[in-house]
């Protein structure tokens, strides 16, 4: 059924379709309407779930860890300061291998107070052991939650997952969303039945004290799970396209990358704008494409290397900034492609912070900049800030 809805309603519907059993959430703009919608669904018996009114995001995550240990499928959503407050428990969820799914409605961190989107909240948590999937539109805000449960709960993965939806641009904007039927979702996503859950007949301690003689092995298992998750995402994505007709079989979606002289790697809603800019460039005979990174954790090294086999000039657009360095995705892409370094050019762009609009014109300029870089003898290692007021954009 196709309906018009905001990204937040799409996320709440996805949680409902996934048959979540325990929801715990705390209000924060622009996430709040997800938790309100879920509370309403629980109140109206549209889902058979428990809604825990926690007193903080830290407690939201803690409560879900407890519920997940009992074998319940769990969901929460947050943004910005709330995500930052959860930090400690994010490590805990990943270390405890609880496949909790959380929508992060991305938002800038204060100060200055700002409720609009950027990815600094999400990137700030990239090292907590969570998988991170970025959405381009409201359809993905729904689809990627279903996919997240499928991958997260895989017995060889068992890792928590963030599904990232850009604040206001997706969360509060109406788009057409195709809502799958509940029976189809049930078929795609069977009930949660983890191997590790509390069993009163076989009492165990979960989250125990481990000495240096074993701790590394626990960490190594998390590493293996992340590595496996790449294949599992692709498999689940293929199964998803068979079931619902929308293709998620790759961690990076290539848009007009065939024969491209320059490609821009990007995450989130700005990918849509970049695609329009690429279309316009192509109309003018300029060969550029967009590589939308759907999955940032686990990092899609292999797919990146494949992409770079055919394109030698790559731009990376980060909607976040790592203080004292540059864009996180930029630095990781550069790192992943280091072995091909000889004639490869990778350049970073930072923009769209705190909800600053990123326009098609911005992306056209970025593409032109990349094409110029390709032709020049210059190596690239600088990072440009896009869209600043004082004209310090470098072109």
């Amino acid at each position, binding site marked *: 059924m196709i309906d018009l809805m905001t990204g937040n309603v799409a996320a709440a519907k996805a949680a409902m379709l996934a048959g979540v059993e325990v929801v715990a959430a705390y209000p924060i703009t622009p996430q709040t309407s997800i938790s309100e919608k879920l509370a309403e669904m629980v109140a109206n018996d549209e889902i058979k779930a428990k809604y825990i*009114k926690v007193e903080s995001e830290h407690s939201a995550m803690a409560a879900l860890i407890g519920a997940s240990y009992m074998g319940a499928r769990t969901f929460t959503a947050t943004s910005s300061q709330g995500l930052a407050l959860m930090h400690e428990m994010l490590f805990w969820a990943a270390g405890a291998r609880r496949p909790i799914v959380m929508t992060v409605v991305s938002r800038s961190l204060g100060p200055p107070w700002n409720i609009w989107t950027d990815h600094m909240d999400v990137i700030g948590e990239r090292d907590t052991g969570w998988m991170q999937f970025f959405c381009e539109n409201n359809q993905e805000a729904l689809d990627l939650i279903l996919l997240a449960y499928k991958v997260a709960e895989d017995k060889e993965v068992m890792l928590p997952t963030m599904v990232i939806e850009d604040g206001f641009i997706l969360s509060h904007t109406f788009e057409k969303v195709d809502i799958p039927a509940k029976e189809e979702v049930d078929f795609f996503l069977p009930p949660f039945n983890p191997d590790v859950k509390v069993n009163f007949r076989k009492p165990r*301690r979960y989250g125990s004290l481990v000495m240096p003689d074993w701790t590394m092995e626990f960490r190594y298992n998390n590493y293996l799970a992340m590595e496996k998750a790449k294949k599992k995402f692709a498999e689940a994505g293929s199964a998803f396209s068979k079931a619902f007709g929308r293709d998620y079989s790759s961690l990076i979606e290539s848009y007009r990358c065939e024969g491209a002289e320059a490609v821009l790697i990007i995450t989130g809603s700005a990918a849509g704008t970049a695609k329009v800019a690429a279309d316009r460039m192509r109309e003018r005979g300029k060969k550029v494409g967009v590589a939308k990174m759907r999955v940032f954790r686990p990092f899609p090294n292999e797919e990146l290397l494949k992409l770079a086999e055919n394109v030698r000039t790559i731009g990376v657009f980060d909607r976040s900034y790592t203080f004292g360095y540059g864009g996180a995705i930029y630095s990781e892409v550069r790192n992943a492609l280091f072995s091909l370094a000889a004639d490869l050019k990778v350049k970073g762009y930072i923009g769209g912070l705190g909800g600053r609009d990123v326009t098609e014109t911005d992306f056209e300029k970025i593409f032109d900049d990349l094409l110029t870089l390709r032709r020049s003898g210059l190596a690239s290692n600088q990072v440009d800030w896009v869209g600043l007021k004082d004209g310090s954009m470098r072109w």
Partner: protein
Amino acid sequence: MSKFTIPKEEYLSKGHSGCAGCGATLLARFCLKALGPKTIINSPACCWSVVQGVWPRAALKVPVVDHAFECTGAVSSGIRAALEIKGIDDVTVVGWAGDGGTADIGLQSLSGAIDRRTDFLYIMYDNEAYMNTGVQTSGCTPLYAWTNTDPGGKKREWRNIGKKRIMDMLIANGIVYGATVSIAYPEDLIAKIKKSRCIKGPKFIHALSPCPPGWKIPTSKSVEVARLATQTGIFPLYEYENGVMTLSKDIKNKPVEEYLMLQGRFRHLTSEMLFEIQKKVDEEYEALKARCQRSG
């Protein structure tokens, strides 16, 4: 012939790593006897995370979920919600935490759990300081006690305020049942735990738990010190239920000195300090008695 009323079953195995004479460990042994096998414990960072042993071994014969320091109330709510949605109603959810993890850093999530009407039993084992990190002052450290963050020093300044009145705070917050218990009175302890198990809603147990290294007492004196705490009126045993306070044992008959002077952490007390503590204890005990008579 006297009747042995303490259940024989053991749920705490030998070989745990609690210190010799650890009051909290003995407390756990008694509490588990009263709770039985259909119990799930959740516990934050505290001595207890160590006492239960090192992976892959575990000292308890009931399931335990370990978690971060400040979230005992929240994890309890999560476990209970999952049990409810799964239709399991014969399990006691127990939050088991130290005084720091309860009255300080964990107060928010505990208050939240009470507010959420979570059906669980919260047991605070009170060793009156942050012991796992090596004896620092917590909100439950008593007046004039020495700790490593109230070391006295040249200024001769020790803990400068009395214990946080955690039970009063939680009663005001809305617990349905509250009780103080002591390892020196195991029958009273077991009866209260058993009773609380049958009451639905948020319940709170405050258990005094002597700690030989932290209190600087001989390992053989834990139970004696605990008993003196009650006999001096410093730690009276009482119960709160449906707005009614009841004194479990009205046995205050010793000066506070007898309790305090057994412990190295109070060795520096002057006669003025002792006098002040005695005065406060007398007043508080009378106030408690008056409250019990009023509500009883």
